[in-house]
């Protein structure tokens, strides 16, 4: 574990979080069939899943790093890059697409000055799109963290963002 900490880039995340991850792995009895649940929990603890965390999980579960990495990169829910304080998910399901979801993405890119998948310099927002959040009746919709915003139009974006 010491070796991992020394290779870790940030100072405030370290032993504590890795210890929590180790506990989660124990809870799931380090079974390879529980890998996805373990990764869900680990991402919640650590915020994202960089390579050193993946290495740590692989070592603890006694499986190869490539297996862990293969799963992490397969699923869009897992992120290998640090994320902003808040995640903006613009719905791009068909219903939102035909009601102008693309304009929301363009508007947000302009306001935040970032592309899809990127995080603002102040670390506040990460901008992503979702393939249908199941709120088709509210199209076009977007989510900031767990709050759903309905019938959003580009003019409303600034005032929504100012709440954060």
């Amino acid at each position, binding site marked *: 574990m010491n070796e991992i900490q020394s290779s870790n880039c940030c100072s405030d995340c370290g032993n504590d979080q890795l210890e929590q991850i180790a506990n989660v792995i124990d809870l799931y009895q380090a*079974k*390879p*069939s*529980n*890998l*996805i*649940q373990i*990764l*869900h929990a680990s991402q919640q603890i650590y915020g994202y899943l960089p390579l050193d965390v993946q290495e740590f999980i692989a070592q603890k579960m006694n499986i190869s790093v490539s297996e862990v990495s*293969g*799963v992490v990169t*397969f*699923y*869009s*829910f*897992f992120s290998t890059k640090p994320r902003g304080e808040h995640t903006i998910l613009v719905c*791009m*399901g*068909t*219903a939102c*697409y*035909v*009601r102008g979801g693309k304009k929301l993405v363009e508007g947000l890119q302009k306001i935040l000055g970032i592309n899809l998948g990127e995080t603002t310099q102040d670390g506040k927002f990460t901008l992503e799109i*979702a*393939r*249908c*959040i*199941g*709120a*088709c*009746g*509210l*199209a076009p*919709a977007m989510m900031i963290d*767990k*709050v*759903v*915003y*309905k019938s959003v139009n580009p003019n409303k974006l600034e005032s929504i963002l100012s709440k954060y």
Partner: protein
Amino acid sequence: MAKFKMHLLICGGTGCNASQSQEIAQNLKNGLKDKGLENEVQVILTGCFGFCEKGPIVKVMPDNTFYTEVKPEDAREIIEEHVVKGRKVTRLLYVDPENKQQVADSKHMGFYKKQLRIALRNCGFIDPENIEEYISEDGYSALAKCLGEMKPEEVVKEIKLSGLRGRGGGGFPTGLKWEIAAGNHADQKYVVCNADEGDPGAFMDRSILEGDPHSVIEAMAINGYAIGATKGLVYIRAEYPLAIKRLLTALEQARTFGLLGKDIFGSGFDFDIELRYGAGAFVCGEETALIHSMEGMRGEPTFKPPFPAQEGYNKKPTNVNNVETYANIPIIINKGAEWFNKIGTEKSKGTKVFALAGQINNVGLIEVPMGITLREIIYEIGGGIKDGRQFKAVQTGGPSGGCLTSAHLDTPIDYDNLIAVGSMMGSGGMVVMDETSCMVAIAKFYLEFTVEESCGKCSPCRIGNKRLYEILEKITKGNGTMEDLDNLANLSRVIKDTALCGLGQTSPNPVLSTIENFYDEYVEHIKDKKCRAGVCKSLMQYVVDPVACVGCTACARNCPVNAIQGEKKMPHVISTELCIKCGACIEKCKFGAISIQ
């Protein structure tokens, strides 16, 4: 539910939750307390009513009064007027968009008249977090009937006789699937509920799990008994936090009531259910990919056979059914296969839930008998096209389906008819489009989705779909040739024939069906360099009308690339070479002098 004189039902689905339905429920409860009525009137947060367009919904029972777009501050008036004085709050009633008349109760609303709610029977009616309400609606009596009066093979036979087909997309006969799994002997078998609803534009599974989780749990236990499995798994999207929460609550309650666990109803049958979370991969809706994902691996599909019923989860016989399919099971057992068999068409029995969305007046979740026409759905239930525009197409079946036109409006909808006209049932997404949608862009939209979601295992899907996308991109940019159009169709057929799993085999459907039904629009993009819907930016030109322009310079000052030239008080001109088509000039022009051609 009998001891209360009146019930106030508030929709607590994801849609209405986003519009403060929790606060409305709290305000109603507080208001009742102030009047000392909390023991006479009950406030229930239910699952989805389906009428998401006009949410949040408050329904008053027993008189079926249907209040729409309710705000938290309206709670006081509902209590003082309706509950205390018995007068309806007319300003909150639903207004029929056709005749502009207020509708006093839900039974007279066009949206509900043609619906038949079987899978959604309890959604918007009971409190999904309270098992006693489910039990009072005959909940778990079907499980009791199976365990007490029926042999496993009789249960399979009943489901077979009902004619129920899989609601997840393929339409495979459910009873036959159970029979195959029952016939494979092993020390352990599994039943799996596929709740990895990934079609963009579909949310029926989410609504069932949020509104009636016990019906799925009961059906899985029945399925377990019928095929000889003691373990159940629900594979659910991590993107559905509310559905997960309600399902976990329901599982806990079922265990407390002895409806899951050891020796259920003293019959000697053991059964329990665990959850497995998806992590955002569309291909995991395919059953072999789903099983690999549940085993903790990459969700890549494998070749069938062996089918999951022979070799599935942990290499044991596994039966996989979708949420909506399961929601039909308890009521079929209770009312009998013959009752179910009378609903629907010859080869498609029962009802289907559709998520009606897009450019339509009544967006929401509907359940209709098989055999209904698109016209009835769009114009009677859906209330017609938004803002009085013209109907152009309806997309069914998500990325695996196709676009249908006005020529198909009177086709009775069932599994086989939809395939015959080049689309498919899919999981039930139904997105309605008007003339502001470009069909080439829609095909590109779906291909973009498939390219992103392709797992990459087989080359037809990984490479073929990417090439399809590139050709479509070329056409929407105005660089397409007629040869490209032939290539699109040929490549599509090759992908259909050679891809490994259902995702790849159906991914060219949006391309093929738009070429078939909207050929002229493709030709226009290629030959005339025109997009009649005004969607494909590269084919548009911004033009200043020299008569309407007063030369105020507002457009020129706001153009980010200085593409607009002109003297003060003189008509301005846009350089098409420099213009990036951002639309800033149109927004700034107060005289309506700039248009898109």
